[in-house]
């Protein structure tokens, strides 16, 4: 469980985000705009990297609901991040079937390779990682995902992890 980071720093939503919120709201019957909450939180997190209280308050205003209705949802679902993570947040499946094929070794390797513990961010701000529960890719384990696109990397080995880290580092530095 990631601890909540407190901040009063105001946030701005881009025009694309605001129009995407309107699009999401249009998918539900009149008066049921609260249904847009989960998709909208994903969009906000994709833009801002995590969900601060000011960001959640803004979501509440757009959806015309109380801020607490946003907080209780954002803290219930594990995908919503209550504190900033690395630019690339590597989430490794740690559930049974992946462990049968070596997921624990991959997590140990990531910790050693990145030099940070689960939930901590590397000094350059590029990487953080954590174990997550079953990602429904049990036949292709070990697997990890990287948001906000949630690209999957399957059949991981220490060598493929090395490659991934170096590819992402190169991408970030370009």
């Amino acid at each position, binding site marked *: 469980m990631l601890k909540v980071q407190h901040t009063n720093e105001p946030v701005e939503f881009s025009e694309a985000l605001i129009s995407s919120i309107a699009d999401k709201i249009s998918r539900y*019957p009149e008066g049921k705009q609260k249904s847009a909450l989960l998709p909208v939180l994903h969009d906000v997190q994709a833009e801002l990297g995590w969900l601060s209280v000011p960001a959640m308050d803004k979501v509440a205003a757009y959806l015309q609901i109380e801020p607490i209705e946003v907080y209780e949802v954002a803290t219930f679902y594990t995908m919503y991040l209550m504190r900033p993570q690395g630019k690339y947040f590597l989430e490794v499946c740690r559930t049974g079937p992946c462990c049968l094929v070596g997921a624990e070794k991959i997590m140990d390797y990531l910790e050693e390779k990145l030099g940070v513990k689960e939930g901590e961010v590397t000094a350059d701000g590029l990487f953080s990682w954590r174990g997550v529960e079953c990602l429904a890719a049990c036949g292709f384990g070990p697997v990890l995902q990287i948001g906000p696109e949630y690209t999957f990397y399957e059949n991981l080995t220490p060598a493929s992890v090395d490659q991934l880290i170096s590819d992402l580092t190169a991408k970030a530095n370009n």
Partner: protein
Amino acid sequence: MARKLLLEHINVPGINTYDVYRSKGGYASVEKALKTLSPEDVVEEVKKSGLRGRGGAGFPTGMKWSFLAKPEGVARYLVCNADESEPGTFKDRYLMTYIPHLLIEGMIVASYALGAKTSYIYVRGEMMPQIRILERAIAEAKNAGFLGKNILGTGYDLELYVQPGGGAYICGEETALLESLEGKRGNPRIKPPFPAIAGLYGCPTVVNNVESIAAVVPIINEGGDEYAKLGIGRSTGTKLISAGGNVKKPGVYEIDLGLPVEEFLYSDEYCGGIANGKRLKAVVAGGSSVPILPANLFLKTANNEARLMSYESLADGGFATGTMMGSGGFIAFDEDQCIVRNTWNFARFYSHESCGQCSPCREGTGWMEKVLHRLENGQGKMSDMDMLVDISKKIEGNTICPLGDAAAWPVASAIRHFRDEFEWHVTNAATAVTRNYGIGNYADPLIIAEKAG
């Protein structure tokens, strides 16, 4: 070679696009249903097919549909449960990734049958790539006149939307899913009322698994009676099985229900046996929630009959010597795997995923995780096994939703069948942290492994 009803065209290049899918006969069931069948006829065909819910519970889909209340002037909803999160199960991801139009086609026919004008596919949030695939496919289908206003000129209107979840296993439970779709925490509702009476926004709602919806397509194309000819007994049709763990060829396989488990596990058409020349120790046949079975009891029932991949045969012997079909998440354990460690891992999963609403589940899953963790780390006591069974019995049946049962069964069954391995963790605490117990005495079918290996 069994007939493929869902995955027949899965390897056709471009089958994820509308044009290729259509050229392979796609959307024929929509034309047939909307132009030649009444909604009641469609429900009748699905009833005749004997299709049972593919999400895990195995409840007859046609019957579920027929329970839907139809009060005048009240909207009805179809919601597809694509929150696939059961450890061991990855068939829905596969289907949505490679042949998304099959799900959309099934959604149109099923929505028509139920009289839904707006339907949702609730996809687990981590499947953002699949959400993008589905949204593109929906746009293509709409463009071709299969969605939107006045579909195929029949006067039937349907809008279909994809809704992402937020990463919570509990939302696979249908009432938790509806709560989540309403923008709330995924706390399951007390039933009754069932969703068929009061579901999404308090309106009559049907929630069906991805694979159940997809199966409607061949059922309508070929007729419910034809579908029912496949399979065995009350296990009709075909089923997608997600094969993982230590099998040689992990992946998603479509089988005729009734296939012998030995053939599924060892033939080259399916799993191809156990990887790395190892021997089979245990199997979880239907996703992490169903009871684990040692290899001997898995391959043969207690009456020494060959076990089959069907709802009835897998359940043969009840929980004493049998298991369940569940969602078809097939996890094979080889001789190097530690049952105690895996049981702890599953217990941690359920503890993490408990929504916290009911005390027996919220507290009990945490206790089970802690006791199992201590056993696995060489600090267990001989009394722990009875305590775990006791906790599991106090959770089972005492919670609003089946997550409590799902958490209790893996622990209870592991101790039931592998008690000696648990005891070994206590009596050989120092050794247990450095090496595994091995295959123990679960070995009687190993001759099969050697023969086939």
